[in-house]
């Protein structure tokens, strides 16, 4: 088990390095001088030269890369051009909104998608199955940001049950914070739960064909108990894996959803940094988002290895 985890950690470190290198190279190759982009309309040759010197953009690419990686490892991400505060503290502050939002969305999508998918599989080829699959087909087609707008229209504008946007900060109380995050989390969770319902249905149907199900039924175990104790336990392994892998979709979704609800999270910071040409923040945020995705895949890999010992050998 230890060697399996060590191998996965080595692969994680390698992937993170490659991720950082690719992001750096892509931003180097892309047309546009970061210094000129940051200055926008004020981009006189003198101003651009001053910015290049201030942010070390005039140094060789390899040196800049190593400095950047060193900064990433030590948590020193430099100063934001727009906000004039350390980028690490900016990210830490905004993560307090995005991470709870993502966690709520994952919990919601799992608590909607897994039961619905199990129900559809247990009632395979009946009207219930068709209804669940029809709803999930619709769920896949609804853009999460539009669903967010509809939720605002109904629950904030018309009924006034939830705030239409903004975030009071955790200082205003946990309940107030959670209340603000409910609508965005529901909007984010919808397409995820549709995907999860379909995957759960296939996984449960596959598990139902296994010999151990027939054995369990033959020894007199009731149908609900067979489903709970044997089928679901086996079917959930691939489902949990996919739930982890969907994290990347969720992260991308947060960029849009935080804008719909004006939430001061990482996604909105990314969007604002683009609008304000704060390339250094954009670069750090992209690497952070990618690292989150890679790290989540690592967790899934390790969890999968713990659940299914056969996979430790691969």
């Amino acid at each position, binding site marked *: 088990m230890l060697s399996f985890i060590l191998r996965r950690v080595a692969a994680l470190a390698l992937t993170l390095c490659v991720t950082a290198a*690719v992001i750096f190279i892509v931003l180097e190759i892309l047309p546009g001088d970061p210094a000129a982009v940051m200055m926008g309309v004020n981009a006189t040759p003198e101003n651009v030269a001053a910015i290049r010197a201030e942010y070390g953009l005039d140094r060789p690419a390899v040196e800049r890369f190593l400095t950047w990686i060193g900064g990433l490892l030590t948590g020193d991400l430099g100063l934001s051009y727009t906000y004039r505060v350390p980028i690490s503290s900016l990210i830490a502050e905004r993560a307090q909104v995005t991470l709870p939002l993502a966690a709520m969305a994952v919990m919601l999508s799992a608590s909607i998608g897994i039961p619905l998918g199990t129900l559809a599989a247990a009632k395979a080829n009946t009207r219930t199955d068709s209804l669940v699959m029809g709803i999930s087909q619709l769920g896949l087609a609804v*853009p999460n940001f539009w669903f967010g707008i509809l939720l605002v229209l109904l629950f904030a*504008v018309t009924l006034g049950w939830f705030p239409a946007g903004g975030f009071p900060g955790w200082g205003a109380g946990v309940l107030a914070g959670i209340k603000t995050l409910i609508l965005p989390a529901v909007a984010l969770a919808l397409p995820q739960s549709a995907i999860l319902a*379909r995957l759960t249905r296939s996984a449960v*149907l596959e598990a139902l064909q296994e010999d151990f199900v027939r054995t369990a039924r033959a020894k007199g175990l009731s149908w609900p108990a067979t489903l709970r104790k044997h089928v679901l336990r086996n079917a959930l392994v691939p489902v949990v894996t996919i739930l982890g892998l969907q994290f990347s979709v969720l992260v*991308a979704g947060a960029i849009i959803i935080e*804008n719909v609800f004006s939430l001061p999270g990482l996604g909105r910071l990314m969007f604002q940094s683009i609008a304000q040409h704060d390339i250094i923040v954009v670069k750090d945020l992209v690497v952070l988002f990618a690292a989150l*995705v890679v790290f989540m895949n690592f967790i899934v890999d390790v969890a999968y290895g713990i659940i299914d010992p056969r996979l430790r050998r691969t």
Partner: protein
Amino acid sequence: MSGPETIAAAPSFRRSPWRHPSLIIGGIIVALIVTAALVSLVWTPHPPTKLNIPSRLQGPSATFWLGTDHFGRDVFSMLMVGARNSLAVGIVAVSIGAVFGVLLGTASAARSGSWLDEAIMRTADFTFAFPAVLSAVMITALAGPGVVNAIIAIGIYNIPIFARLTRSGALQVWSRDYVMAARAAGKTAAQITMRHVIPNIAGLIIVQATIQFATAILAEAGLSYLGLGTQPPNPSWGRMLFEAQTTMQRQPLLAIFPGLTIVVAVLGCNLLGDGLRDVLDPRVNRSRS
């Protein structure tokens, strides 16, 4: 307990594609959207970008079928032109993904187990970690927002999806007896790929292209909503939703119609993809999986 995924009789699928409701419904929806997009090239009920302030924020009427926005522009005309825009982005982005993905996937399968295969697949794994929106954000951060950059970002996101699918399909073809025979007859890997592999996996690729098309429409709408895709004054469904948010309290329908159009378009593509899969890939009855 009823049986799960059952092996279906292949000939019945081949003989009767019209028995698949998802194929028919999806086909009709996609045909309607393509027609609207094509008609918008020569005719729209009103000029889609013309400002008409006296008629702003009107509800649906005989003159303005779906009402007008905060600049008095006709919503129906904007949706028609938006369809053109979404289709163009979808076609180009999915083509980029399909062409490069199939190229890499077939090369990977032809050299299965080699360093080339390993390099292509690991790169695909890596690119997979970047959702379309994230790649687009990175590209637009430096190169500036715009529809071309959005297309490139969505296209890049599609490449590993097609590469993985092509590789797995092609590996199955490579293991067939007739391919062994072709190899024994001295055919090169390129000749076998062109003559045997690609024709055999074409159905698979077409089905995936339809599904990715739906994803591309969603991604373009999301990017345009953020202001990173289609730029004003060109109408786009995502942009219309963004603009509707400011006037939502006075005219909620402005936030409804573009969203419904996206849902119908995406649903149409997904249903068409499901239907095509049943017809083109009859080995497994996946009509409701």
